[in-house]
């Protein structure tokens, strides 16, 4: 017989957050504690339905007694912990991290990043003009590095991949946060269609042997797009509407309803613009989906608007 752990009730832990005493359930992270007390900590790689990846380093905070800053998204609270989220050290760290990300990556579709940058005075352009997009990122092997002359800032820019009717992959916007890999892998979808290939600055998200998506294990559930924080992954419909200038979030409504296909009862949030469904997401707090859908729920809505 296999034993499956189904958990025990949680106790409350008391800690000090920016000088104030707060109590949160044991096992919570510093980020959870901040959210519970109304503090907004910038983060890119944190996903409310995923295990912390500790990749982006945007959410670093200071913990008294710790030599280094700690990632608030993964560090669990401890009794008596003293945490500072807005010290000079945290601001300085966030500034540099955002500058490096902003210089190497296209953050133009990353929500809130402009506010965060101006709050900490980040200026990605100080590393110089961006290097032009490269054509060979998918083929680079570890160790085969071109010497950089320092005249331009290195970037991950590359052509946008449009190889199927449902998804667009614009890896020039990818910050390597791993969320898509985790959503596609054993945390949710278990399709393992994508993973990290390469090393160091050449690391990128890739299908097996960098094949186009239709030749990969992808089943088009869109659960990677659901968690992508920068718009590197997007739905084709959204991508096309952004390209032709008709994507307008201020004119969109979001209404949560139930999928019309099988009987599992997945919650769908329909993003509607001009009485047309333009995107489908799923509420992350739904006990049925936890933000995940299949190809039918994610894309199977066009039939109602073939009018």
């Amino acid at each position, binding site marked *: *017989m*296999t*034993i*499956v*752990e*189904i958990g025990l009730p949680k106790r409350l832990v008391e800690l000090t957050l920016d000088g104030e005493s707060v109590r949160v359930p044991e096992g919570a992270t510093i980020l959870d504690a901040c959210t519970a007390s109304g503090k907004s900590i910038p983060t890119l790689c944190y996903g409310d339905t995923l295990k912390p990846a500790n990749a982006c380093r945007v959410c670093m905070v200071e913990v008294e007694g710790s030599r280094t800053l700690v990632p608030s998204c993964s560090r669990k609270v401890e009794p008596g912990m003293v945490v500072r989220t807005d010290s000079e050290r945290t601001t300085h760290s966030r500034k540099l991290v955002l500058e490096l990300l902003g210089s190497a990556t296209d953050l133009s579709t990353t929500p809130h990043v402009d506010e965060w940058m101006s709050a900490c005075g980040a200026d990605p352009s100080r590393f110089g003009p961006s290097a032009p997009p490269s054509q060979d990122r998918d083929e680079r092997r570890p160790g085969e590095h071109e010497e950089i002359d320092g005249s331009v800032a290195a970037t991950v820019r590359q052509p946008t991949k449009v190889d*199927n*009717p*449902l998804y667009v992959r614009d890896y020039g916007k990818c910050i390597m946060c791993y969320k898509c890999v985790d959503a596609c892998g*054993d945390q*949710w*979808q*278990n399709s393992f269609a994508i993973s990290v290939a390469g090393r160091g600055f050449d690391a990128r998200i890739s299908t097996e042997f960098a094949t186009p*998506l*239709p030749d990969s294990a*992808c*089943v*088009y*559930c869109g659960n990677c797009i659901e968690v992508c924080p920068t718009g590197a992954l997007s739905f084709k419909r959204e991508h096309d509407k952004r390209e032709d200038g008709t994507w307008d979030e201020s004119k969109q*409504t979001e*209404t*949560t*309803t*139930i*999928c*019309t*296909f*099988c*009987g*599992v*009862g*997945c*919650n769908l949030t*329909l993003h*509607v613009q001009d*009485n*047309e*469904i333009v995107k489908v997401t799923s509420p992350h*707090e*739904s*006990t*049925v*989906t*936890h933000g*995940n*859908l*299949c*190809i*039918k*729920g994610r*894309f*199977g*809505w*066009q*039939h*109602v*608007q*073939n*009018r």
Partner: protein
Amino acid sequence: MSRRKKTEPYVRLTQPLVRDSGILRPATWDEALDRAAEGFRRNVANGGPDAFGMFSCARATNEMNYMAQKFTRAVIGTNNVDSCNRTCHAPSVAGLAKVFGSGGGTSSYQEIEDADLIVLWGSNAREAHPIFFQHVLKAVNKGAKLYVVDPRLTSTGKWAHKWLRLNVGTDIPLAHAIAREIIASGLTNMSFVERATEGFDEFVKAVEPWTLPVAELETGVPAELIRELAHAYAKADRGQLSWTLGITEHHNGTDNVLSLINLSLLTGQVGRYGAGLNPLRGQNNVQGGGDMGAIPDRLPGFQDITNPDVAKKFNDAWGSNFKAAKGWNLTQMLEAMERGDMTTVYIIGENPVQSEADCEHTIKRLSNLDHVVVQDIFLTKTAQLAHVVLPAAAAWCETDGTFTNSERRVQRVRKALTPPEGARDDIEIMGEIATRLGADWQHKTGEDVWDELRSLSPIHTGMTYERLEKLGGIQWPCPSEDSLEPSFLHGRLWEEDPVKRGMPATFSPVPHSPPVDELTSEFPFRLTTGRRLDSYNTGVQSGGFESPLRMGETLDLCPQDAAALGVTAGEEVRITSRRGQIQAPVRIDDGLTPGLVFMTFHFPDEIDVNIITIEATCPIAGTAEYKAAAIRIDKLPVKVG
């Protein structure tokens, strides 16, 4: 690989149609509604209320289904109301209701994650219920064992720790052999059996002949694997048994379901957190349609229609006078059409012409009718046969209401889109017809209808829209607005007090009955049907989007059979059954074994697989044996020139 012929996607209906001189022509709403009502009145006047049948819609809201059965019972005065649950899980509802008193899956999705043993029987959940399967995989990744019972090695089976490859239609021998092994090994949960069940001794006798070697011969599953599953299930702390249409779409589907329920009774794997029985429902609201009484033998909330007190409660509430007797189910309605006893039918959002087995036969039967009214979002093949076609709003995104899912969770459906100009809400259309038939029906919003239902159905009484919103849906039963029941059903079976324990669960010593469509030298291949991930049923909805995964209809067969027939992937072949003939391209699938072939039913406009399936139906639930047809495959003659 793609040999798919391009078919135009369906376009929304926005104008009512009426048939004149054999041709459907556009009409005004008033004209169409008058015609619809007049036809119903004429047929009921001639043939009595039972000349009328309602095909309600498992895709529409609970509110619409409640009103559809109310229309049938209160306005027309018959109990002839049913829905497409007949083509899929009616045996599950019948089996569970027979043993436990209510026809729902007994566990919640969270409990699946917390199970330590999961058996998926006749279910390709990875493709047909992908998000349910994510809950299964959560459990597997935590250490639970997964057993998959299926004639095909599907993408679900590939995740199993053990795959039990049984011959099509030998589910009962396999279940009985598992039961016998549990009993013979002393693993029966005797305290549960003695306290909560009936008929154990008779059951022991019934399974006695199914020793492991005998079962291996009949089912094709190695004795050692049967033994392993029996021991694993009996010893599990929290064992989950889930099934889909591999169990129900047989001529003895209800018996198949009962044979699985037996295993849970034997081991006490029901009525506890994490242990349970779960039919995975195939349509967004097929659970709700039955819960709302849009079935011929139950009133809303699974209340027994043959109980005069129950019928009186509803008649008093509605000011109506329907009989406390079962109506005809969908299968019986189709037979009544053939006899001429049923002459008019109101079809809401169903496409029986393409979804029923042996569809040529269904077309003939519908063509017999004096008056067919179809209410749909598209001009489906069924709508094309109608005398009046009424354009409806799409339930899931253009109306307000609720759906009920496979874990009995009632969840809010919300209007996100304005329906196209000309299409109307289902409940509103029905109200217009009811008014024309002289009923005093005021238009009600979804919430008003729901509140009426709550006043009549105790299992829904506590579910206000406000609570559904706040709690992210509520699972039935929910009798009180102040509390919530446990997430699993039938906990009463474990009570010490016999009064609280209530009706005991009865073992079912069901007999084995092999598929009706026999394999012979003329028809040597067993054809089974199922779904693929990116497509859905008759494809009316899923055909609306472009999928990179879609390959169109194929005849899947194993490499050995392909070699023996001398056919290769992509080659068009002729497929013949005792009922008809079609052509389809070959696809090679390693997951099949010699003699077993597979097709979907997603592309009926191009290749109509239900021309060759068999309409042998389960006598209890009326579900057809889609899963087991006998066919022959012929290589096409080479074209000369």
